[in-house]
């Protein structure tokens, strides 16, 4: 007998009872999943979205085939003669997989922030089911819990299953050799472990964002807890498996961790769902005038590229007032929406953890000579995340009726990115230089950091326009993005090892100090040819990617010039 929520009533009109959690989660989940799929298809062509898992599978297969070389098992002794020389142990490989997945899930799971934007924009151009409780007999907690379930399912289908398929192809194609160190049964263990890690990471992040959106002390407490937790695990005070249940399961193979992991994740997500604050309450808040003061301070944006390069000494005759106006609007929105706090926290936490790790770890004992120049490229890499936040503050659809083009708004967002992150990166590098006592490499690190920031954000903006969160799942864009970022990043990282002792720059500085204006670069230097060559290569790559970044910013007109804001 179908369960009906209609109450018996003798009048012409029925009386209804609101649906409960279990009565509405199913249909909400189903429709949300459809909504998510359509959103992705809407941005990228269907074949591009389907190509993404195919590429992941391929990538995972190649990595899996490379495992024997990384762990020194299943390869002939001539290739890896001394087991002690192997790069990683199995446990380290497992830890790397789960920690990376967990960190990724934390980044993807801030549903309360995403939801707040969706709900607040429901009267705008786009509306989502997450905002349905405004009008329908649906609890906010139900929609958020359904949203969590939908995200877990979506990422399992889009990411985890392709990864496992790739691993399976590698494992089964080499079974007949009898040498391959991964057994088919491990695939199941890894798959379950990854699902546990993904759902737990998403749930923790969701809960954190839900608590944060309650405002007041909570918005200070959440980043503090996040920072301290990151520190405790990064410094090794607690092992990662004490937090990541998927990793614990992968280490122990104890079946009790499976139900425990799922129960923990679902409980955290449910708690997060109930803690999300009701954002349907419209607030009319009067604010002090911000637009004009910000606009006034951004006068330097009118200088033009030559003016910026000469620090305003030679200013452009033609004033670029539109950029200044658009940047002002973006900054005001960034501040008023409260996003700036979230962005700065999410940008600073990994940097602070890196800094403290550098402080705690004695690099002299590390097998690879990590130094200040090794960190600099990664600062730019964080730019992708930050740029994504910038594009999610408000719908740009209203620009469609104004004499503003998509490339102009993209460039304004890129400018805001530089204005709001450069100071954090500079502080980080200065602290790191102090930490590592590597003042001599600081100017070089600045150059590398700035070059990488320009390049990676320009590449992101060029490839993904105003919708990076969706574009990253378009396989063709993803391939270009990864090729474009990983190659220079790896080159710079590897080349930085040649500068471990910073002798080259230190010697140059010593020479200048001793000989003044008569200093000659061929002075009494005691550095290897490799160090010199590495130093030159680092700056050649930095110069190259800066030029490439500037070129990509120009090419934005060609790629995005004909697009409208709604699409």
């Amino acid at each position: 007998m179908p369960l009906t929520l209609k109450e018996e009533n003798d009048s012409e009109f029925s009386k209804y009872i609101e649906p409960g959690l279990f009565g509405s989660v199913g249909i909400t989940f189903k429709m949300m999943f459809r909504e998510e799929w359509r959103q992705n298809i809407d941005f990228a062509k269907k074949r591009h979205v389907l190509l993404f898992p195919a590429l992941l599978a391929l990538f995972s297969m190649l990595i899996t085939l490379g495992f024997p070389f990384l762990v020194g098992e299943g390869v002939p002794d001539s290739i890896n003669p001394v087991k002690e020389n192997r790069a990683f142990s199995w446990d380290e490989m497992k830890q790397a997989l789960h920690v990376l997945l967990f960190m990724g899930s934390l980044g993807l799971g801030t549903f309360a922030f995403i939801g707040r934007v969706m709900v607040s924009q429901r009267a705008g151009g786009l509306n989502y089911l997450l905002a349905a409780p405004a009008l329908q007999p649906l609890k906010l907690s139900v929609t958020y819990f359904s949203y969590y379930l939908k995200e877990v399912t979506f990422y399992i289908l889009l990411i985890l299953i392709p990864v496992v398929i790739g691993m399976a192809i590698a494992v089964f194609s080499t079974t007949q050799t009898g040498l391959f160190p991964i057994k088919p049964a491990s695939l199941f263990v890894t798959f379950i472990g990854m699902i546990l890690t993904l759902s737990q990471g998403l749930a923790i992040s969701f809960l954190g964002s839900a608590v944060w959106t309650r405002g007041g002390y909570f918005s200070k407490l959440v980043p503090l807890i996040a920072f301290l937790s990151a520190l405790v695990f990064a410094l090794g005070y607690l092992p990662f498996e004490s937090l990541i249940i998927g990793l614990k399961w992968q280490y122990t193979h104890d079946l009790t961790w499976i139900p425990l992991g799922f129960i923990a994740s679902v409980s955290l997500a449910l708690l997060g769902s109930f803690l999300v604050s009701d954002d349907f309450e419209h607030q009319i808040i009067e604010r002090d005038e911000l637009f004009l003061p910000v606009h006034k301070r951004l006068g330097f944006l009118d200088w033009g590229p030559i003016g910026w390069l000469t620090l305003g000494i030679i200013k452009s005759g033609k004033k670029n007032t539109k950029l200044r106006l658009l940047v002002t609007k973006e900054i005001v929105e960034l501040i008023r929406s409260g996003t700036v706090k979230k962005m700065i926290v999410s940008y600073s936490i990994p940097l602070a953890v890196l800094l403290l790790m550098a402080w705690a770890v004695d690099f002299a004992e590390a097998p690879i000579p990590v130094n200040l120049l090794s960190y600099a490229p990664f600062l730019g890499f964080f730019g992708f995340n930050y740029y994504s936040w910038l594009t999610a503050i408000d719908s740009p659809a209203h620009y469609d009726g104004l004499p503003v083009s998509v490339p102009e708004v993209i460039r304004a967002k890129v400018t805001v990115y530089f204005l709001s992150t450069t100071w954090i990166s500079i502080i980080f590098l200065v602290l790191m230089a102090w930490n590592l006592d590597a003042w001599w490499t600081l100017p070089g690190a600045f150059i590398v950091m700035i070059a990488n920031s320009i390049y990676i954000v320009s590449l992101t903006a060029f490839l993904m326009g105003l919708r990076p969160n969706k574009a990253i799942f378009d396989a063709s864009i993803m391939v270009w993005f990864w090729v474009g970022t990983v190659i220079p990043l790896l080159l710079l990282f590897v080349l930085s090892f040649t500068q471990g002792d910073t002798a080259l720059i230190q010697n140059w500085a010593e020479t200048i100090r001793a000989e003044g204006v008569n200093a000659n670069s061929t002075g009494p230097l005691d550095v290897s040819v490799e160090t010199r060559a590495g130093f030159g290569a680092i700056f050649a790559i930095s110069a190259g990617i800066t030029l490439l970044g500037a070129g990509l910013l120009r090419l934005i007109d060609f790629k995005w010039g004909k697009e409208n804001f709604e699409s």
Partner: protein
Amino acid sequence: MRHINSEEPLVITEDLSKMFGDFIALHPLNVKVFAGEFFGVFGPNGAGKSTFIRLLTGQLQSSMGNAEVLGIDVKKMPQRLKANIGIVPESESPPSYLTPYEYLYFIGRLRRLDDLQNKVLHWLDWFGMNDKKDTMCKDLSKGQRQKIMLACAFIHEPRLLFLDEPFANLDPIYQRKCRTWLLDHVAKGGTIFMCSHVLEVAERLCTRLAIIDHGKVLVSGKISDIKEADSETLEDVFIRLVGQSDNEEE
């Protein structure tokens, strides 16, 4: 026509008010809307009409006072209330990435409606949306999206409907069709609470109305009662009252 118990108040507010920070959006209001009424709230832009409807439908929490709708405490049981009423908001659209058919189906499933398939098809047909039933809502025109929002409010044929500028984006044919349906609904014992600034709607539909400005009720009653002279039109009344209210505010 069924017997209408016009003595039965379906909407009761006691000193219901709303503040946004220091701004008083709605001064304490005491309103009763009875079964079988077509009650209209009229006022200029920013008068507090939408805030009023949002308070009564559980979309906003009041700052002070109480509201009871269909015997349900709005503050305590907003979901129960939403299950029993239909709401047409002023500016919201259906979810962009669902089709009209899917969204109506979703709404119907949430409300556990019987014979859902036929009901969905009936309302799509009623609004002339059969050929758009599989188009994503984001690709519909504003008027078509408004039709879907109206269909969502009508599909469970609730006793009480809250409509905020329901005809704003509709063409004249569907405006008339909707007006006729709403009048029929009232004739069958249904009740309608509508906000608008289109006075023509008031004269055609409302059995009783209130004019509000700056969050205060300036006048309420039957149209004939609020006119000072027979020759005075509703527009004259509106301009006279709102003009006075503006002067007082200044």
